């Protein structure tokens, strides 16, 4: 069966510091991968999605970036965090073609 792992679960970072959140999927190949951000008590904002290695589509211009160095690995990064980057970040995977997507457990980021 397929599983998705996301880490770290919680992160407190100072303003201006770098960020790296990692997500890996097991039990499938060539999945679509997604990064979402959820502000406290709010909906999900799609940040990035990827349909293959090295293929990244950005939904929202910001100081975040994403990379997919391997088929089942998706990384969310920032060179310099802003206070407004605080939130709950969720990775998800799906098989594409309008099918269901499945979420990791999320990473809480607090920028101080």
């Amino acid at each position: 069966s397929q599983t998705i792992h996301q880490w770290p679960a919680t992160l407190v970072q100072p303003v201006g510091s770098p960020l790296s959140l990692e997500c890996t999927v097991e039990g499938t190949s060539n999945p679509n991968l997604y990064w979402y951000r959820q502000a406290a008590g709010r909906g999900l904002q799609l940040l990035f999605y990827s349909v293959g290695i090295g293929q990244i589509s950005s939904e929202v211009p910001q100081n975040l970036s994403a990379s997919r160095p391997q088929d089942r690995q998706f990384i969310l990064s920032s060179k310099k965090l802003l206070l407004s980057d605080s939130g709950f970040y969720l990775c998800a995977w799906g098989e594409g073609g309008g099918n269901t997507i499945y979420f990791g457990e999320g990473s809480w980021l607090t920028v101080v």
Partner: protein
Amino acid sequence: SQQGEEDPQALSIQEGENATMNCSYKTSINNLQWYRQNSGRGLVHLILIRSNEREKHSGRLRVTLDTSKKSSSLLITASRAADTASYFCGSPTGNQFYFGTGTSLTVIP
């Protein structure tokens, strides 16, 4: 951008009552899906309804879809305290997948 809006934003009911939440969406869809999110956790898929379906059931869940009104509803019957969570509708558009703003459901024991 978000695909839709859920209504109401928050709902509080007594255990045993039914809970209904609605979702309106903007663009044409192939299917619409409902997810549940417990506080501080990832989203869990509940049910998928295709654009050529009008109603679908899964246990205590009933989902309807009205493509002419671009709306869907999720009914949870005989609610339990464990149903307390946020509920989101979402739909794929090409390779993207967008969600609504969510309904926060509180079931009071």
